[in-house]
C-alpha cells in the first residue's frame, strides 16, 4: 500500500493526521460551506454587512421565499422531465449497441465503436447550430422532449463505451453455450446478458442523471421559458434578477445542487465505479 499505512507511524504523526483530515476538508469545502450558511442568513444581516459573523437567526424563509415567489419548483420539475427520460433512453439504447459491439465480430465493428467514443469528446459548439436549427424545424424547441432527445443521442456515445467494455468482460462461454443450445440471439441478449448488466445499468443511471441534471449549455440553447427550462438555466436567469441578493442566490444554488448530491450519496459505489472506468487495468 502506498503511502505507508499511518498505523505504522509514531503516535504523534497519527494524531497529526487525524487533526489534519477535518482541517483539510474544511478548507476544501470552504466556499460551499459559506454559501450554505449564507442561504440560511436573514436578508437583514446581509444588509447590515454581517456576512460572516453570527447570524441573527436561521432564516428558513429564504427557502420558502424562493419556492413561493419564484418558479424554482417548476424548474426542478422541468429538470426531472428532461433527466429521467434521458437516463432511460440512453441506458436502453446503449445496452443494445454495447451488446452488438461486444458480442459480434462483424466487419466495421471497431470503426463503429471508435465513432461512438470519439463522438463523446466532440465540443458541444460544433453541434449547436444544426441541432438547434433541427429542433426548431421539428417544432421541439423549448420542450422537454426536444432537449431529452438530444441528450439521449449524445449520452449514448459514452454509455456505449461503458456497456461494451462491461459485456466484453463477461464470460463469453455463456453466450457460446446458449448458441450451441440454439437460443435465438435476442433471447441471449434478454435472458442471459441483461440480467448480468445490473451493476452497469446502476452505474450509468446515476452518472447520466448527474450529467444531465447539471447540464447548462444545452438547456440554454434548446429551451427558453419557465415552462421547460431546467434548474441550471433557471437558476442562471434568476441570478440575473437577484442582483446581489446573496441569501436567495445561495438558497437557489443549494437546491439545485441537492438532487445530484443525494444521488451520489445513495449510489456512491456505482457512481465511482462508472466514473473510474478505465482508471485501472
Amino acid at each position, binding site marked *: 500500500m502506498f503511502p505507508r499505512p499511518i498505523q505504522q507511524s509514531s503516535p504523534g504523526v497519527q494524531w497529526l493526521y487525524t487533526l489534519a483530515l477535518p482541517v483539510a*476538508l474544511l478548507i476544501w469545502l470552504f466556499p460551499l460551506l459559506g454559501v450554505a450558511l449564507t442561504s440560511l442568513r436573514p436578508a437583514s444581516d446581509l444588509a447590515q454587512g454581517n456576512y460572516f459573523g453570527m447570524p441573527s437567526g436561521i432564516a428558513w424563509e429564504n427557502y420558502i421565499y424562493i419556492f413561493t415567489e419564484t418558479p424554482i419548483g417548476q424548474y426542478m420539475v422541468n429538470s426531472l422531465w428532461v433527466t429521467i427520460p434521458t437516463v432511460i433512453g440512453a441506458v436502453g439504447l446503449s445496452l443494445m449497441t454495447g451488446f452488438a459491439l461486444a458480442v459480434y465480430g462483424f466487419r466495421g465493428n471497431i470503426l463503429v465503436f471508435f465513432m461512438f467514443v470519439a463522438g463523446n469528446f466532440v465540443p458541444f459548439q460544433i453541434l449547436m447550430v444544426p441541432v438547434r436549427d433541427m429542433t426548431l424545424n421539428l417544432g421541439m424547441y423549448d420542450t422537454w422532449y426536444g432537449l431529452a432527445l438530444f441528450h439521449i443521442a449524445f449520452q449514448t456515445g459514452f454509455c456505449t463505451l461503458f456497456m461494451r467494455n462491461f459485456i466484453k468482460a463477461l464470460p463469453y462461454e455463456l453466450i457460446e453455450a446458449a448458441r450451441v443450445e440454439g437460443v435465438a440471439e435476442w433471447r441471449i441478449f434478454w435472458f442471459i446478458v441483461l440480467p448480468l448488466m445490473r451493476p452497469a445499468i446502476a452505474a450509468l443511471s446515476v452518472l447520466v442523471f448527474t450529467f444531465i441534471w447539471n447540464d447548462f449549455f444545452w438547456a440554454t440553447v434548446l429551451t427558453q421559458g419557465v415552462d421547460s427550462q431546467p434548474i441550471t438555466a433557471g437558476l442562471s436567469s434568476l441570478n440575473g434578477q437577484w442582483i446581489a441578493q446573496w441569501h436567495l442566490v445561495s438558497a437557489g444554488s443549494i437546491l439545485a445542487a441537492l438532487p445530484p448530491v443525494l444521488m451520489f450519496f445513495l449510489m456512491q459505489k456505482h457512481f465511482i465505479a462508472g466514473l473510474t472506468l478505465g482508471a485501472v487495468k
Partner: protein
Amino acid sequence: MASAPPDHRTVRRWNQRTLAPWLFLTPGLFMFAVYVLWPIVESITLSFYDWNGLYNQDGEFTGTFVGMGNYAELMTDPAFETSLWNNLKWLVLYMAALPIGLFIAIFLNQTVTGIRLYKSLFFFPFVISQVVVGLIFAWFYAPNFGLFYLLTEAVMGQGTAILADPDLVTYGIIVAGLWPQIAYVMILYLTGLNNVAPDQIEAARLDGAKGWRMLWYVVLPQLRPATFIAVIVTVIGALRSFDLVSIMTTGGPFGSSRVLSYYMFEMALGEFGFRMGYGAAIAVVLFAIMMIFISGFIWKMWRDEKER
C-alpha cells in the same frame, strides 16, 4: 440422416448472426448519426456561409456562400485572439489538477475510521453543477465582502476584485473550474492507488525506496492508466469551459475572459446578432483543437484493443 436439417439450421443461424448486430445497433446509431455525426458535417459546411439563422417564406436557406471568408475574418478578429489565448491558459493551468489531485489522493489513501466519508466529501465539488460552482465562486470573489477580497485586503492592504480585473479574471475562473476537476482527478487516482500491486511496493521498500523515489519510480508507473484518463478528462474539461465563463462574467470585463466555446455562443446566439456561419467557423477551430486530443485517445485505445 444427419445432414439436411442441421445444414438448414446452420444457415439460419449464420444469417441471424450477421443480421443481429445491425438490428441491435440501428436505434442507437440512428440517434447518434442524426444528433452528433450529421451536425458536425453541417457545421463545417455552414462555416463557409454567411447566415443569420433564418429561412425565407418558402422555407429556403437564406445564407450566402463566402468561401474562406469567415476564417479570414477570424484571423484579424482581436476577440478571437483573446479567446484562443485564454483557451491556452485554461489548457495549461488545468493540468495543475493532476498533481494536486494525486496529492490529495495520497493524503486520503489510508484506512482510518471515517475515511470513506472524507473521500466522499472531498469528491463533492464534482457532483454539483458548474452553474452552482460558478455562483459559489462569484460569491467568494465578490468585491467588498467576498472572502477572497477580504483575504487580499488583509494581506496586501487593498482588496482585489478579481472578476472585474481584465488581467486576472481568467485565472479567477480557472481556479473555480479546478475545484471540481481536482476532485475528479483525485477519485481516479484513489481508485488507481487501490489497485497498486502491494508486493511491488513491499519489495521496493525492502530495497530502501521511500518518499519521492518510491512515488516516481514504483507508484507512478503503475498509475499510468489513471493518469491517462485524468489527462483526457482534464483536457476536455478545459476546452468545455462554457458554463463558468457564462455564469461568472459573461465573457467580461471587456471580453477579456472569453474562451472559444463562449465566443462561439456569443456570435451565433448572443446579443451581437445571429452570425451562424461565423459561429460555426469558431466551432470548427475548437473542434480541430479537440481532434488532436481525440485522435491521440483513439490511437491509444486502438493499440490496447490489438494487444488483447
